[in-house]
């Protein structure tokens, strides 16, 4: 019994190292060393050149904030739509429910580019093409289906009974949402936040089309770098890129602590 447990632990760390730790550490290593050439043997040359080039890109900091801002708004809109639609789909019975569910999934089935080009014309008429509003709206297209799906499942597994039990005890709907729904749906909400944030962060084509070059996100700055053969710079950029969701994660976890009835430091009595 103990042996198999130990065995599994070793297995776990082997997989973690190969699949996660090694790539990340290797990327970090690459960002501080010159690209390997035939002549250099296996000797690593330390350099800050990658990071210097990265920060000399004058749009970097602004693009980072634009990405963060757009991502945050996309996440908030996704949560609003996902929680309300998810609740309705989980608990209400109405005609055409399965049709509606299929419709919500459509944006992932239909090529995003086709939707974007169609929507672009509409956005020009509405005057929101080339603005961040337009970019936020177009980022909702590939994210909403996931948000609704995840939060619907969250509500389904929560069940009506516990919500009814809470309601009987006297909270109004908003108080109940804060004290029961949100804390219990935390895992689903967390998945939604990170999935939609990362999807929004990595949109290049649709951001370029709708933003029209006016809205410069991190992805727009990042892609031209792909042409440069300098893997040191690329590695530095990738790490910077990956840092953003990580910082966002910490921010969200801190926000979660503000919810009622949270005791993250509780030790078992």
């Amino acid at each position: 019994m103990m042996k198999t447990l130990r065995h599994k632990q070793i297995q776990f760390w082997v997989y973690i190292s190969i699949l996660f730790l090694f790539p990340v550490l290797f990327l970090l290593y690459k960002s501080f060393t010159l690209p390997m050439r035939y002549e250099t043997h296996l000797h690593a040359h330390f350099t800050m050149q990658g990071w210097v080039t990265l920060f000399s890109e004058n749009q970097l900091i602004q693009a980072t904030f634009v990405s963060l801002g757009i991502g945050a708004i996309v996440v908030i809109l996704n949560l609003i739509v996902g929680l309300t639609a998810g609740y309705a789909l989980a608990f209400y019975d109405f005609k055409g429910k399965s049709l509606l569910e299929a419709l919500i999934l459509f944006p992932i089935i239909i090529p995003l580019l086709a939707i974007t080009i169609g929507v672009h014309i509409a956005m020009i008429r509405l005057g929101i093409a080339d603005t961040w509003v337009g970019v936020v709206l177009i980022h909702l297209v590939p994210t909403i289906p996931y948000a609704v799906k995840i939060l619907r499942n969250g509500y389904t597994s929560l069940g009506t009974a516990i919500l009814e039990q809470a309601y009987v005890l006297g909270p109004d709907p908003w108080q109940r949402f804060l004290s029961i729904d949100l804390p219990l749906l935390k895992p689903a909400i967390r998945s939604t936040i990170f999935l939609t944030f990362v999807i929004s962060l990595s949109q290049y084509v649709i951001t370029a089309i709708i933003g029209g070059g006016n809205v410069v996100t991190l992805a727009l700055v990042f892609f031209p770098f792909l042409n440069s053969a300098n893997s040191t710079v690329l590695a530095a950029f990738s790490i910077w890129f990956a840092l953003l969701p990580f910082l966002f994660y910490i921010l969200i976890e801190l926000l979660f602590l503000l919810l009622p009835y949270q005791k993250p430091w509780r030790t078992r009595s």
Partner: protein
Amino acid sequence: MTTPCIQLHQVSKFFQSDPVFQNLDLSLEKGEIMSIVGPSGSGKTTLLRCLAGLEPFTEGRLLINEKDLTGTETNKRPISLVFQQPLLFPHMTILENVAYGLAFQNIKKKERHPKARELIQQVGLKGYERSYPHEMSGGQQQRISLARSLAIQPKLLLLDEPFSSLDVQLRIEMRTWVRDLLKEKQITALFITHDREEAMYMGDRVGIFHGGFQQIGEPDEVYQFPSTPFVAEFFGDHMVIDEHHYVPVQSLIVTTQDPNTSQYCWEGIVKNSIFYHGNRFYQMSLPSLERNVTVASALELKTGDNVYVTAYPERVNSFTNLKSKE
């Protein structure tokens, strides 16, 4: 005489156009416990949900202390509901669970926890305040759930088969204990069950529910004098002879010889035998009545034996609702 604390006037509930129950009247005195017993699917849970406000009544009115609450939202009703499952909030401690409802009642923060502590002590779980629900057993969880419902000091407490998820031993313990607690705190309660023993034990009155109340009365009275064939079979130990007559099972006599009385004698076939409280009971089918009946007998009988089941004519009764009509 004072007006009853809880009053239901002519309430009905329809799902689409199918009635679940129609034109019910019911009133409860303060501190009274009433059991509602009925087979599953009889609509008793729907009645409770309507009382709690989780479903609207299609027709009729609900009054508590003469105040009309028919259209009041669930969270504003002075009614609390204990479900079949404990449904404790897993992210809160026991103390927070019990104090939950108090947060919405204009009670100062400082007073909520002492109140909750007192209730936790009353349900016999002092010392568990800082535990989490998943660390408690099923019976303990259900007691916490009861404490949480009592904390908001409801004018009416609804209990929807609260012991059905517990094992038999614990169930018997719990019902004694819950009844004592409710009586001590003078709580007006409606207790739903499908178990007639539980209904008789818990209720000052019992209501036999089957698409509406078949009969309401004190447990003894309902047991001994059923008003309809349904009540006689479901709640009492009676054998229904026809639409108008029944006979208590304990006054049936089993013989192997034909007793030669034409009235109230039926041929039967022994199906099997069981022991209960030290007595031997035989389950037998009476083909002429198309019924099965379980009768105590000291005879040694085997499965498949042919017997005669006789009832004294003076023990045969008419259903009470027919008597009153006659």
